[in-house]
C-alpha cells in the first residue's frame, strides 16, 4: 500500500471508477485541459477523452441540470464545483430536481456533486464555506464529508455507485496536508456508517471533516492529562449513523459536538438534539457544541482564525464538559 494524500485518494477513486464503468463521466469548470483548480482530474482528459471529461461554461445550474438529465439516460455523472461555495448557484437543480425525483417518480438519480469546501487557508467569504447543512435539510440527498485519504477514496467510490444524488464535500485544507496508506485496489466505505477514530471512556467527541484531526489532537492532549476521549467521525451526515454516537455517549455520559461550519442551524444541532432525545438519562453534562462563529468567512488570517473552531477552542470546551 502506498502512502498518498487526501487529494490523490480522491483522484484515484474517481479514476478507478471511470476505468471500471464507462458510464461514469465528469463535468465542471476547467477540469479537462487544466485538470481542475486543485488538479483532482489531472490527466483524465488524456485517459478518458473529451466525451467523458467535459469542460463546461461557467454555469453551475446548467451543468448540474445536464448531469441530472444524463443520469436519466443511464450515465453516472460526477459534477465538480470549483469551490463548494459555488454549489449555491446550482441549489435549485439539486434540492428541487435531483433530490425529489425518486420520491416523485421512482427514477434513480445517480449523480455525485463534489464540493471542495472548508476554510483555514485565507479564501475569504466565497472560497471557504462548509455548506453541508444546506443539504442535510433536504430529503432525498445523501451528504458525506470524509476526513482521511482512506475514507475520501472509499466514500467517493460508494457515492459514484449509489443510485441517489450524493453531496460529497472534500475539505481543501486536508488535500495535501493529510497522508496515509490507501489500498490501491477496489474498496468502498459505506455511506451512512460512522467510525470510532479513537476509543475512550470519559467524553465523546462527535465530529466530521477537518475537525476530526483537531479533535484527535485534543484527545491526545487530554489523554496526557488523564482524560480519555472517544472520537466518533460521522463520515456521512445523511443518512446518519445515530447508533454510533448514541452508543458512545451512553458509555461516556458526556458529549461534545464539533464542526467547522457555523453554529446556528449547523448539523451539530441535529446531533445534540438526537442525544438529548435518546440518551438523556445517560448524560452527566450538557451536550456542548464547538463550531465556527455565526459570521461570514473573513479573509485576513487574524479574523479567520478568530472565526473558525480551533484545537484550543475544542480543548477548552472539552475541559468544561469533563469538569461539569
Amino acid at each position, binding site marked *: 500500500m502506498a502512502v498518498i494524500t487526501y487529494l490523490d485518494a480522491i483522484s484515484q477513486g474517481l479514476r478507478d471508477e471511470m476505468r471500471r464503468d464507462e458510464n461514469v463521466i465528469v463535468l465542471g469548470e476547467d477540469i479537462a485541459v487544466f485538470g481542475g483548480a486543485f488538479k483532482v482530474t489531472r490527466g483524465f482528459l488524456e485517459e478518458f477523452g473529451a466525451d467523458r471529461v467535459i469542460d463546461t461554461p461557467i454555469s453551475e445550474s446548467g*451543468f*448540474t441540470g445536464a448531469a441530472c*438529465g444524463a443520469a*436519466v439516460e443511464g450515465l453516472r455523472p460526477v459534477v465538480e464545483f470549483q469551490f463548494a461555495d459555488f454549489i449555491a448557484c446550482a441549489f435549485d437543480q439539486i434540492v428541487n430536481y435531483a433530490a425529489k425525483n425518486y420520491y416523485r417518480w421512482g427514477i434513480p438519480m445517480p449523480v455525485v456533486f463534489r464540493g471542495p469546501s472548508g476554510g483555514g487557508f485565507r479564501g475569504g467569504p466565497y472560497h471557504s464555506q462548509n455548506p453541508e447543512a444546506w443539504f442535510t435539510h433536504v430529503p432525498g440527498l445523501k451528504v458525506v464529508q470524509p476526513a482521511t485519504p482512506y475514507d475520501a477514496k472509499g466514500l467517493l467510490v460508494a457515492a459514484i455507485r449509489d443510485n441517489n444524488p450524493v453531496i460529497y464535500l472534500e475539505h481543501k485544507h486536508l488535500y495535501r496536508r493529510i497522508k496515509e496508506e490507501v489500498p490501491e485496489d477496489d474498496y468502498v466505505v459505506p455511506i451512512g456508517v460512522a467510525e470510532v477514530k479513537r476509543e475512550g471512556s470519559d467524553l465523546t467527541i462527535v465530529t466530521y471533516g477537518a475537525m476530526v484531526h483537531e479533535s484527535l489532537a485534543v484527545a491526545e492532549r487530554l489523554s496526557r492529562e488523564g482524560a480519555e476521549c472517544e472520537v466518533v467521525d460521522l463520515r456521512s451526515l445523511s443518512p446518519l449513523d445515530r447508533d454510533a454516537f448514541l452508543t458512545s455517549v451512553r458509555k461516556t455520559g458526556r458529549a461534545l459536538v464539533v464542526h467547522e461550519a457555523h453554529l446556528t442551524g449547523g448539523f451539530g444541532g441535529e446531533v445534540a438534539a438526537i442525544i438529548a432525545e435518546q440518551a438523556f438519562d445517560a448524560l452527566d453534562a450538557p451536550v456542548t457544541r464547538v463550531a465556527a462563529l455565526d459570521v461570514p468567512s473573513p479573509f485576513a488570517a487574524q479574523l479567520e482564525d478568530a472565526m473558525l473552531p480551533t484545537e484550543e477552542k475544542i480543548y477548552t470546551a472539552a475541559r468544561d464538559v469533563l469538569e461539569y
Partner: protein
Amino acid sequence: MPTSTATRPSDDLTRDDRLELYYFARLTRDIEERLAVLYRQNKVVGGLYRSLGQEGESVASAYALAEDDAVAALIRNLGSLIVQGIRPRAVFTQYMAKGTSPTRGRDLNLHFSHIPDAGGPIVVGPISMLGDLVPVMAGVGLGARMRGRALVAMTYIGDGGTSTGAFHEGMNFAAVQKLPLVVIAEDNKYAYSTPVSQQMALARIDQRAEAYGIPHEMVDGNDMLAVYDASRRAVERARHGDGPSLVGVDTMRMRGHAEHDDMRYMSKPLLDAWKARDPIARYHAHLVETEIATETDLAEIDAMSRAYAEAEADLAEAEPPPEPDTVAAGVFAGDHFQPTVEIVYSPFREKRGTPRHAPASEAGS
C-alpha cells in the same frame, strides 16, 4: 441565425397521419374539458392548468419526434404527452391525486415521468421552477449521444420561462456541446398575469436564440402544420448532429393561469382576436377544405375522442387514494416503486401496426 424554411416535411404526412394529428388535438381538449368538469365537482385536487388555444402547438411539435425520442412537457403541454402515448387515465389520476397515479399521489398534474428501460417514448417530468428542464434535457441529449443513440430531446418553455437563468445556461450548454435538443418557446402572451412586454424587450421570442448562435424560427403556433414543419426541421437537425434549435410559437393562452384565475388582467380584444384563430377549428377547416376528410369523418373522430376521454376519467375516478402509511417510502432509490404509466397507441397507429416514424435507434447516422 434564422433558419431556412425551404423544406415542408408535412408534405410527407399521410392521410392517416393528418387525421391522427386532429385526433390528438381533439383528445387533448376533451381531456381538459373533462378535467374542468371534475374540477367544478371538486374532484381535482389543487389547480387545473388548461392549454385551451395552445393544444395545436403541443401536439404538432411532439408529432415531429420519433416514438422513442425524449420529451419534457410543462403543465400546458398535455398534447405532447398524448402524442407520445401517455394513457389519459394517468393524467386523470394525477389530477385527482390517486394512489395509483404515476407519482402515487406524491406530485400533481403533468409532473410525472416515464423512463422505459428499453425502447418506447421517454417522458421526463417537470418541476415548477421554470427553465430547469432546459439543462436537464440538454443532459438527456448528452447521455444519449454518449451511449450511441441518435435520440432527440424536446422540451418547452413559455415566454416567462425564457427569462430565467436556467433557460440561458441550458441553451448555452446545449449550443457549445452541439446537443440534440429542440426547444419549443411558446409566446402565449402571459406568464400568469405578466405580459410578454414585461418579460423581454425583444420583438419575437425566437430571437432569444441569437444569443446562443443556434438556428431558430418563429411560426404561427395555431397553425398545426406550420408548427409540425418547423419542429420537424429542428428535430432532423438535432438527429443528424447539427445541434440544438429553438422554435418560437406565436399562440395565446385562452384561459387564466389556472381555472381559479379570474383573468381580469387579460385583454378582451386580444382574446376575441385569438378566438377566431383557434388551432383545432382551423385545422378542422383545413382538412375539410383540402378534402382530406369530410365533416362526417371528423365528427366520428370527435365522438371517439370524447367517449375515450370520458371513459378514462371514469376509470381514474374509481381509483383509490394513496394509503397514508406509504408516505415515507421511496425517499431514496432502492425502495420499491412500481411504474404505473401505460403507453397506448392511437386508433390510427394501431390500424397501421407501425410507429409513425422510424425509431430513433434506426434513424440518423
